[in-house]
């Protein structure tokens, strides 16, 4: 009875106040608790940790300082590592876009038995642990690995690949490619196949039709794909750890070193927070660009 009278008043007076249906809260609850407990809380603890004073003899003290941040920003070693991280993540993203977009296009043009087979080929590697794949690459790229054996057989001499940036980028591209192919492929699926035919009949060559008509429409897929690839590459751990060796550090391996080798947890936390902030800033700026573009062209 009260429910009916309430709905009647709310109907005449506009939306009801806070005492509304509890169902949305119940539905959102578990996810929110999970997110709070497993993401927000550790993150807050890490931020607090990064301001703690660290002493090499006594460990973490209950005093606060900005020293770790100052140390990171005034040391060429850390700055160099950040720069390398950005550079390799960007390069990986670029190569993934260059390989992944045509790959997705070819995939979308395949007929059915083959399309399913090749989609599996592309997604399949995701089923294998990154660590296993990184070891696979280190076997291939090592000084006596298959690549160098082939080069030697061809009389081209050997090349140092393992523990170089090249090795890291090769392996990152391999791991990240599905994250580029799938969004582009999804965008291509939404495309009216006749649009390309229309461009052809208006006198465009195949290449022009791709460049002027297909590409702009899948660019949204490419941009969101690069967002994923960039984010994952910049925070990659296993691949730089195993293929970069002891010297070639990226952001995630640097944090690991501070925590596990130097035992300087506050410094490690500071680096982690800086990497997170930088990654977040780049991705948000990028996402802004993506959204602006989407609004402008595709509504």
């Amino acid at each position, binding site marked *: 009875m009260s429910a009916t009278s309430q709905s009647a008043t709310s109907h005449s007076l506009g939306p009801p106040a806070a005492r509304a249906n509890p169902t949305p809260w119940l539905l959102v609850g578990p996810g929110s608790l999970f997110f709070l407990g497993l993401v927000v809380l550790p993150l807050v603890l890490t931020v607090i940790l990064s301001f703690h004073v660290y002493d090499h003899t006594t460990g973490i003290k209950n005093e606060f300082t900005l020293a770790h941040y100052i140390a990171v920003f005034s040391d060429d070693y850390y700055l160099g590592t950040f720069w390398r991280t950005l550079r390799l993540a960007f390069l990986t993203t670029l190569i993934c876009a260059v390989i992944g977009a045509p790959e997705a296009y070819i995939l979308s043009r395949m007929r059915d038995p083959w399309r399913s087979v090749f989609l599996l080929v592309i997604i399949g590697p995701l089923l294998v642990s990154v660590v296993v794949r990184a070891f696979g690459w280190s076997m291939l790229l090592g000084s006596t690995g298959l690549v160098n054996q082939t080069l030697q057989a061809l009389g081209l001499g050997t090349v140092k690949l393992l523990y170089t940036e090249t090795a890291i980028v090769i392996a990152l591209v391999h791991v990240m490619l599905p994250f580029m192919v799938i969004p582009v492929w999804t965008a291509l699926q939404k495309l009216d196949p*006749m649009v390309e*035919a*229309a461009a*052809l*009949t*208006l*006198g465009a060559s195949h290449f022009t039709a791709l460049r002027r008509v297909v590409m*702009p429409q899948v660019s949204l897929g490419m941009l969101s794909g690069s967002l994923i690839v960039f984010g994952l590459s910049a925070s990659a751990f296993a691949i730089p750890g195993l293929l970069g060796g002891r010297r070639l550090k990226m952001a995630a391996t640097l944090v690991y070193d501070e925590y596990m080798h130097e035992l300087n947890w506050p410094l490690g936390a500071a680096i982690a927070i800086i990497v997170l902030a930088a990654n977040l800033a780049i991705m948000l700026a990028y996402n802004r660009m993506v959204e602006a573009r989407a609004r402008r062209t595709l509504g």
Partner: protein
Amino acid sequence: MGFLTLQSLSKVYGELAAVRDVDLSVAKGEFVSLLGPSGCGKTTTLQMIAGLVEPTSGRITLDGRDITHEKPNRRGLGIVFQSYALFPHMTVAENVAFGLEMRKIAKAERDRRVAQMLGLVHLGAFAERYPRQLSGGQRQRVAIARALVIEPPVLLLDEPLSNLDAKLREEMQFELRRIQRSVGTTTIMVTHDQAEALSISDRVVVMEQGRMTQVDAPYKLYERPATAFISSFVGKMNRIEGVWQGGRAEVAGIALPSEPASLSDGQAVALSLRPEKILLAQAGQGVLDGVILARFFLGSYWLFTVETPVGAISVSVPNQGEEPPGEGGRVSLAWTPASLKVDALVGAAA
């Protein structure tokens, strides 16, 4: 020889012949429709003309030039796709200008021709809009403008009106014809809508299961359908089977007035009579008496189903501002003998 000719054009997919031996000659400036139910091969035929589907055999010539194996981007034909296939990331003006741009036409000339073409399709004010901001009818006109601005020798329309609602469709039929007349482009339209084909074409090509079964002017097609399929597909038709006896058509022992025919006695015949050719008379005053089974009011006319000794007959009567007899009423049907067409039923004896 026609401006655009198709010579025994066929397309076979595996075992299935989508198009079989289509021969057609289209004169310059003519508006020809390919009419048929879905799956009859009309769209495949259009796509072969466009160059989007490679013919299995046969020849296509345009203005005396063999274009059978020419790439679609070299044919220079204008095509309006069923989905319109507009470029969603370009404005209306950019869409229309695309073909001119591909022809490397200078910007000033391009802008002038785009503006002129948008004027022709009454979209001058929408040049800077994106396709998603337009209604279905407007999109369709953009597609037509985009196809016509390159001044193609032939305009191909693939079900251009099927995505529009009924009222808009009727408006666009006349609009399409007006644009085609004013530009004078030879046009081939694919449609499954017989009313559309009849109202705007110079000639209609009917296709059934990959074959052409009749090519005629709309009026002739309607009055003299070549096959039983066409008679039922184009307009409504009463079909009665009877026997030719003593120079007259007889059904269930009743002689029906019909057009003259030179058939031998005892020949089984199919009689065809359009519903609108029948007059509703008072009982006993017509040729065939019956009882009204159903009556539908359709605004401009009434549609009746009348039960007669020869079977149920559809009759349509124009709305003259007076209410005709209702269901259960006794009436009589009358028609001029020439309205009842007689065709020998092949392979059937009485």
